């Protein structure tokens, strides 16, 4: 949505902006509706970023409360979700940094990656090793979770926004306060890391990898 449009035109087009304008005007029902409407996306995104369900809910809640606190400052200049996710991004990164400063005991498997594998916990199999067909769903999701946790904080946020909110580079740049070029670099590093970490799991249905797929030439 271009910046040149008047707010009323934009509001006409974007129901979320209409809703937020009502929140700005102290419409309590509108705020409740806003929470209803965005909680699934926010909790989902936060969970993917921080890896813990409880923390994700707390953070999503904090995002909504912050929206409410700064509602009077809202002006419809961009897509509403961009604004919302900007707040979410700041809160999520802060949380991750605080956690780094004051490490807590990992509560969920997903968190373990930051502290290295737990004793007895198998790390990602070596490249070229094909896991058995019997690998259970839980194990697979744990592996993927660890791969995601292995990314840098900002990489993880960018990946999650790109993958689960389907934001393009420019939108991610808006949300994260970066240039598009910086996002491109962030994402390509992250994608390479993911490929590295998950290499052993991408042909697990027994289908042979295509020619040249098993060897990397970089």
């Amino acid at each position: 949505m271009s910046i040149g449009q008047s707010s009323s035109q934009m509001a006409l087009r974007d129901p979320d902006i209409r809703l937020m304008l009502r929140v700005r005007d102290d419409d309590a029902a509108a705020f409740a509706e806003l929470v209803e409407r965005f909680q699934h996306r926010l909790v989902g995104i936060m969970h993917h970023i921080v890896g813990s369900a409880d923390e994700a809910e707390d953070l999503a809640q904090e995002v909504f409360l912050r929206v409410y606190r700064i509602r009077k400052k809202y002006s419809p200049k961009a897509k509403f979700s961009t604004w919302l996710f900007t707040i979410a991004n700041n809160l999520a990164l802060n949380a991750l940094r605080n956690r780094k400063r004051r490490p807590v005991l990992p509560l969920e498997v997903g968190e373990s990656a930051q502290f290295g594998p737990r004793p007895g916990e198998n790390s990602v199999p070596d490249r070229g090793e094909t896991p058995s067909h019997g690998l259970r769903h839980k194990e697979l999701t744990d592996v993927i979770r660890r791969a995601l946790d292995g990314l840098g904080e900002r990489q993880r946020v960018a990946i999650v926004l790109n993958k689960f909110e389907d934001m393009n580079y420019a939108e991610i740049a808006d949300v994260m306060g970066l240039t598009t070029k910086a996002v491109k670099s962030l994402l390509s590093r992250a994608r390479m890391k993911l490929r590295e970490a998950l290499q052993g799991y991408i042909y697990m249905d027994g289908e042979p990898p295509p020619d040249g797929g098993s060897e990397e030439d970089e």
Partner: protein
Amino acid sequence: MPIDPNSSPREDDGPEPSPAEAELIAYLDGELDPPAARKLEAKLAADPKLRARAEALKRSYDLLDFLPKPEPTSTFTTRTLEKLPPVAAASAASAAVTAVNPATTPGPRSTPGIVATSLSGVPVAGDAPHSNPSAPVVAFPRTRRPWVWAAGILVAAGLALGTGYIGTGAVRSYFLLPSAPRDTTAYAIPLADLRVVEHLPLYAAVDDLDFLDRLASPDFFGEDPLPPEGLTLPHPVEPEKPVGHQFDQLAKTFRELAPDQQEKMRELDHQLYELEPARRDRSVRLLESYAAWLYRLPDHDRKAVLSAPSAEKRLGVIRDVRNGHWVENLPAEQRKQLKSQPAAERAVLIAQWRAQEDFRREGWQSARAHWEFVRTGKPPWPFQDDRMKKEVLEFATAAYHPDDLKRCRLTTADRERLVEAIKESQEVGEKAYWFPLGKVIYEFSKKPQYELLPEPANGKPVVNYPDLDGWEAAQKLFARPLPKAKINPHIGKWPDFALEVLAELNRTKLAGNTGSYHLGPCRAVDFKEDVRRVILDLQKKSTPAEAKALKDAEGKWPDYPRELARLARAHDMSVPGVMPPGPPSMWEKTYNTTTRPPAPKAGG
């Protein structure tokens, strides 16, 4: 913490990828401009190793779709609202009850974006494309919210069949990667299918038009909220159109459906666009509400809806899920009350509450249909004008005699409705509510059994036997035993008594077309002053053909007054005492709710 927008990557960001690698990733993300994309596609076509790298990148990225889709706990909204500053919290908490109640949630209507953008991956209802595990399952495209697709396709293809996420068939299709780089011609569809493809997210979980009609009941999604305040809807309702990549994916999904599934979608689209516009608008909104609701469901509920084997079963599942939500979202106090009751009592209590809700819903529906009046607090047309208020009230009393049982022609229920509406209009100040009166008068004016005909100038209409003394044909008729018994119930009622006499005369051929002037006024001079004025007016306005038709009816009752009323309607005039005061077109526009009510002017 402020971030430098151009900050160089930090240690944990890993090595800088080669420019070629970064290019490949940007290509996979759809971020390359067309010339660069074409160039890379040429390279991909020529280089199997590059292709393999691209595929590994894509597959590893697609693996993220395996992560569980986290859902907020059911108390999330309430808990969040409770944390608001005290004053706001009280009103918001009560608002939350409505906001979270699926029966009243206004969300879907206002989330066409969600529908159009997020549901592109919803699998088609029923299990045709997935019923056979070995049948080709649509490739896993990148959609706006891939977990929706994951929930949809995987659930329908995998879990619904009991094979689990890791069932080999499902996994194979899950990992299916187009072996060639994106070929835009692969997404081409015949122009005739364009609209079907654009609407695919809305059509996907619908069996047929009949299914949709059933969804329109208030038990399902019949609660279609109106546009937000101050907004006009001058154009027909059109869902947001998917563009670019989204459209490509929808086109691809459509092409990969089984031919009979494609045909089903086309048929539904065809039927929908055959509907008259107002009904189609309502149906499109309904589709949006339904799709948005489906999108928001927890996985297991959505799975249950989508995998139902028939429309009937699907409706059953939807009803159960919504009923469950309804109870879950009752205010805490009511839920507590419910818990403390034995099971049998519970059902009774729920039924009672639902009945109360139905009652409130009816009120809301009426309010919503005329929300500009509700919003502005102004009475609807023609009640903004004191003279018109008086005239309409006089008309209602004189035409329908609600307080005079002997003369009243209305059924008991209709009479009560009118009495109630008059009472509401007579409340003091802001409590005065005029809409029901306008509505009831409009509806009565449309009912053939309540047809009104002008009374004669002398104020003595034919309503009993003595009124017809001196008319030979009538006396002959009354001498017979049966007719009197048939006519008696209409004594005292104009024009019912006269019409009944005429019907009997015609049946027994005692009068034919002559002498019916005995029954009621049928020449201009027979009518009261106000009606005569309208006749004069009409004579000036009417075409020669219209004037002739009226002239031909002269001397015949009720032909003449009927022709008069027809002519008046054609010229948007009202015949006093016979039609509600004011132009008929305004009554039609204001109170005919079978088509959309007039959109209010913004800010008006």
